């Protein structure tokens, strides 16, 4: 189990206060809550945007809270995807692959993901010209190629048109099942939980109110 301790952050009139939280290290754990529940603040603390004092985050025996950003090896898909807009889909992947695979560029792995995620058509298109669905798949591939110990998805389907979301959920579900990477999914959408989550951590007003396992 991954263990988070003493995660406390105060902003104006909001307090994120998680004294202790155990999270499974397998499957998909959804962090669910309405707007203002603290899930975004929680997410930003895990990826390092916020820097809480005196907290700890142990994951598979590694104290991630003590590691610098680039050594935490987190695969992150932001709500806004945060692709490098002036680079093509291929260049967005390449720049991360070159950073993570210093000695051997993973050509075969990239080709395999490219097929699975259906990125052949838009491979040489600049990121700023991609559709929402294409951006999401490129962002996901970039996260997967980065050798993550953990995948963090922040409202990954909210930027997509409603009719594309089911398709996107199915794709992500298949991929996660094949690759067996633990996932933290930040969402306010119950449909995401129904489709993907094995465990749910409910947040409300900056605190954890429940931790449940689902039959998914």
């Amino acid at each position, binding site marked *: 189990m991954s263990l988070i301790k003493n995660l406390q952050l105060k902003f104006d009139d909001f307090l994120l206060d998680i004294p202790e939280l155990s999270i499974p290290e397998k499957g998909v754990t959804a962090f669910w809550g309405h707007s203002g529940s603290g899930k975004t603040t929680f997410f930003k603390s895990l*990826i*390092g*945007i916020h820097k809480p004092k005196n907290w700890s985050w142990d994951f598979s025996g590694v104290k991630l809270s003590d590691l610098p*950003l*680039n*050594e*935490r*090896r*987190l695969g*992150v898909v*932001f709500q*806004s995807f*945060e692709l*490098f*807009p*002036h*680079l093509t889909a291929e260049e967005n992947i390449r*720049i*991360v692959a*070159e*950073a*993570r695979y210093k000695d051997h560029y993973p050509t075969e792995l990239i080709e395999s993901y490219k097929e699975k995620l259906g990125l052949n058509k838009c491979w040489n298109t600049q990121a700023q010209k991609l559709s929402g669905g294409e951006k999401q798949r490129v962002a996901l591939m*970039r996260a997967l190629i*980065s050798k993550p110990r953990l995948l963090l998805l922040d409202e990954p389907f909210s930027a997509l048109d409603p009719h594309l979301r089911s398709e996107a959920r199915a794709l992500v579900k298949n991929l996660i099942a094949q690759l067996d990477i633990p996932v933290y999914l930040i969402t306010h959408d119950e449909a995401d939980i129904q489709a993907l989550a094995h465990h749910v951590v409910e947040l409300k007003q900056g605190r954890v109110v429940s931790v449940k396992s689902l039959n998914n």
Partner: protein
Amino acid sequence: MKVFKSFPQIVRYGLLFYFLIPYFIFIKYFSLDLNLDYQELSWAFKNSLIQSSITAALVTLLSIPFSLGLFALKPTASLVASKLLLIPQILPTLFSILIAFSILNPFPMGTAGIIFIFVLIHLGFATVLVHSATQEKMSGYSMNSEIYGISRLQFFRRIYFPILKFELLATFVMIFVFCFASFSVPLVAGGGRGTNLEVLIFEKIFIGQNWPAAWTLNIFQSLFIFILSFSILKNRQYEPQEFFAGNYLRSKLGLCGIGIYLLIYLGGYAFGVLKSLSGFDQLITFSAEILTATIRSFQILTVYLAACFILLYAWIYDFVKNGSQNISSHLISSSTILVSFSFYLLFPSSNYGDYFKITLAMSILFFPSLFKSFLEKPLEKIKSQIFTAQIYGIDSTKIISVIVLRQIKRPLFLWISFLVVWFLSDFAILKSLGVQRSTIGLMAESFLSSYRLSLAYLLSLYILFLWLVTMAAIYFVSGVIDVINKKSST
């Protein structure tokens, strides 16, 4: 003793140290002198205050209808007009002084004349600032007000001014700060009656040889400006919203105002140049000196640009590593006299000495303000991409070269073009540095001071020509570098 934890910290504090070098030089050489002539100080301070605050108030007030004039144009025309409005700010002071002297003849030397020149220089820039702030913050409020039957007066009183009050104040303060620390305009147009604090400091140094007094005055001025800049001109982040101008934000009268302003400035300059063409034969007699000055200008420009690029790289590295702008970005209006005189003391009057002191002085004086004007916002916009790249372990060199520099090409080109044109036409800094050998800017100033306006005009046209040629060369070279980079990455 471990003062710095890491190389990024060394870079961060190293940059701050670099921009504060003139202060350290003064601290080393002089002590503060609190036995000042306070009557003289308060007179100069009063003049600085009057000149700066009247200019800032006039410019801020006029920028409101002028910015509404920009909304009366179609988007493409508005973009072109915005670029034209920046010309008085882009072009060095020399040009504005020439135009002012040509428009008002006899020119009212003193406070009135100084204010006239300041307004001429800064009005277009303030208009663009207010226009940009309106687009960022006003969203669809104007249209909604019309739909709901709110009158125009009520819209401005209850929606426009309350929402934009900070931005209007920031515009006022920015113009105030630029004028407060101005040296070249009061020097040329002050006529002895309009002495401001900066000119007083200059007189203390070069006429009165009272360096401790100059140093004390400067500390006072620098602190005043720094506090204003730090407290008011902070970079504020906005959530981008879709903007609809609506009828309340469009003004044909404002558009006429823009037309008159551009006619006065650009038309005034063009008229001045045309009138001066008859002096071309006289200019030819100076061709040998002009050629020597041109070569000298370009030799020093090369060193100066190289130094600016090193500073820029360090600054961006600091931003990437530390996640925020260097505090030196608030040193936007350092005293020309303090900076120049400190290097005048430090470096001998020699050919090589000139290279060092000009490069140091100009980079310290120009870099923070130009960075703030052109590069600060574009960098802030891609902060989240930089963060994402760091999560994925991409190293800083690659983040800077592939992610940052490639996305800020256009503002970078503008930044370089300002560096070049300000350098080529500068005279105030060079005079204060005690530079002996002539440059193009110094030649133009010598014509101006001796009332040979036609020669000054023609030389200013020559400066524009040199500027265009330099920028074309830089554009070409950067294009070649781009092609080589693309080919080597495929």
